[in-house]
């Protein structure tokens, strides 16, 4: 087994040098990490699992990568090696990203971006890598299914002043402010995305399309009491039928309040705050404005 | 002070705080 292991590692090295990532991963996968004959220490096993995962991820192969990251999950909790632990975290986030579990991926990327140390073992953590993780967190949050959870993560990212330096900040700002994104902005955002984030879903939407349409629908629900699907399609830049389909699903999944009148082809957005509560809010806003004026008067000595 | 006047003008415009039929029913 010892000799086999050495040959496999050598071959994997050669495949890696030729950038044949999956072949290198397969070569290493052949090493029997759980063999009863030789005792391999956990750190070695963990390093191999993480290495194989990273190789599969180079080819965006989430399925095989996940198999090995799951093996690594049993080893990482006792691992004292911070470098390996960090690599494990990055692999895990990337697998979630590839599997389009965008909100979970965003939270892990964000966690990675908040690492304080700039030196872990013999690895230097540079600002650029952290910025990349932060940017990936923003991208995944924007691509996540619209709803209350996503809004919370958006608010967290928007408050993080490091985000204001990211190229993606303008779109984060608009998304957080629940503003409708127009086609030019969406196209500019699309240029920053990875292939799997623009892949087609079964319903013939791309991941980006669905995220953008859902976001714009929610944004429209803040602006409209009701809107015809004809006009909604024009606003979102999609056929009215598609707009209706996504709206119906969001209402069904309780991610948007409203009702659809198919006869009139109109969607009625519901403001889930009770009329009386809205009254309270309006009065509160009015009193706030009143106080602002009094403060202004005071500050001007009037 | 023009700024104060504009703010008061904007404030007054917020009255009445609510006026939808639905609100009238709920309020009653």
């Amino acid at each position, binding site marked *: 087994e010892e000799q086999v292991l050495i040959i496999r590692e050598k071959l994997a090295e050669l495949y890696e040098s030729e950038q044949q990532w999956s072949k290198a991963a397969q070569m290493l996968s052949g090493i029997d990490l759980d063999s009863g004959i030789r005792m391999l220490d956990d750190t070695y096993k963990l390093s191999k699992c993480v290495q194989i995962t990273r190789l599969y991820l180079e080819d965006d192969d989430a399925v095989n990568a996940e198999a090995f990251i799951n093996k690594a999950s049993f080893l990482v909790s006792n691992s004292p090696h911070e470098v390996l632990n960090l690599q494990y975290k990055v692999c895990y986030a990337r697998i979630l990203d590839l599997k389009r579990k965008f909100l979970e991926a965003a939270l892990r990327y964000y966690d990675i971006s908040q690492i304080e140390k700039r030196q872990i073992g013999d690895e230097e953590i540079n600002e650029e890598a952290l910025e990349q993780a932060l940017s990936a967190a923003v991208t995944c949050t924007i691509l996540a299914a619209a709803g209350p959870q996503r809004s919370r993560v958006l608010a967290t990212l928007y408050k993080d002043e490091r985000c204001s330096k990211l190229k993606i900040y303008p779109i984060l700002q608009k998304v957080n402010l629940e503003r409708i994104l127009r086609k030019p902005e969406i196209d500019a955002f699309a240029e920053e995305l990875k292939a799997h984030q623009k892949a087609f879903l079964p319903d013939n939407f791309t991941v980006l399309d669905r995220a953008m349409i859902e976001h714009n629908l929610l944004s429209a629900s803040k602006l409209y009491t009701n809107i015809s699907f004809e006009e909604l399609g*024009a*606003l979102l830049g999609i056929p009215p039928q598609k707009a209706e389909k996504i709206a119906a699903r969001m209402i069904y999944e309780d991610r948007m309040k409203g009702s659809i009148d198919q006869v009139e082809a109109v969607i009625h957005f519901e403001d889930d705050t009770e009329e009386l509560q809205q009254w309270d809010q309006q009065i509160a806003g009015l009193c706030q404005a009143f106080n602002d004026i009094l403060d*202004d008067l005071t500050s001007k000595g009037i | 002070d*023009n*700024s104060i006047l504009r703010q008061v003008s*904007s404030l007054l415009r917020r009255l009445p705080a609510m006026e939808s039929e639905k609100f009238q029913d709920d309020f009653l």
Partner: protein
Amino acid sequence: MDIERKQSELIDHFVKQAAGEDASASNLAALILEATAHPSLFAFSEILSVPNLAKLKGTQYSSSLDVLRLFSYGTWSDYKRNVGCLPTLLPDQIRKLKQLTVLTLAETEKVLPYDQLMEELDVSNVRELEDFLINECMYAGIARGKLDQLRRCFEVQFAAGRDLRPEQLDNMIHTLSSWLGTSDSLLHLIQEKIKWADTMSEANKIHKKEIMDKVEEVKKSL
């Protein structure tokens, strides 16, 4: 208030420039053009009240003073009615004047019909009107509200204040005093209600005690 805070520095900047000793008529005309085209400035009466602007009268730039007055108090329709004696507006100025027009319409009504808006803003279709209200009014922070396509109207919840003409002050004072009167009588009414509720609850307590005493008596007699 936010909009006032945002534009107060701009106002100070333009007022200071307009009040500068060296401000010639052409500089003042250029300043008015810059101010009326600036995307974040929606108030002009401070600039209009700078004495230096009198220099524009009787010069080839006198129409700039009319433009400033138009942006302080007028609407897009006013511009169209006087287009012959006003300079051609830049696209940024046109957009601004239309934004100011929405603020003027919102001064008197909280529900603005689409037909009225489309006529006042020279807009030919609903999509274009709604895009204007969304991008240039709600997202610009000068108005907040809901678009109702079925009733074809814009329900305004908040609109920034425009410059006030002197003749509007009486109306404002009247509205404020009647609001004060209403609030006072409302507070008074609430006080009365509270007193009534207290009295009633006292009476109920006494009544309840009497009943309890009777129950006790009956129990004893049994």
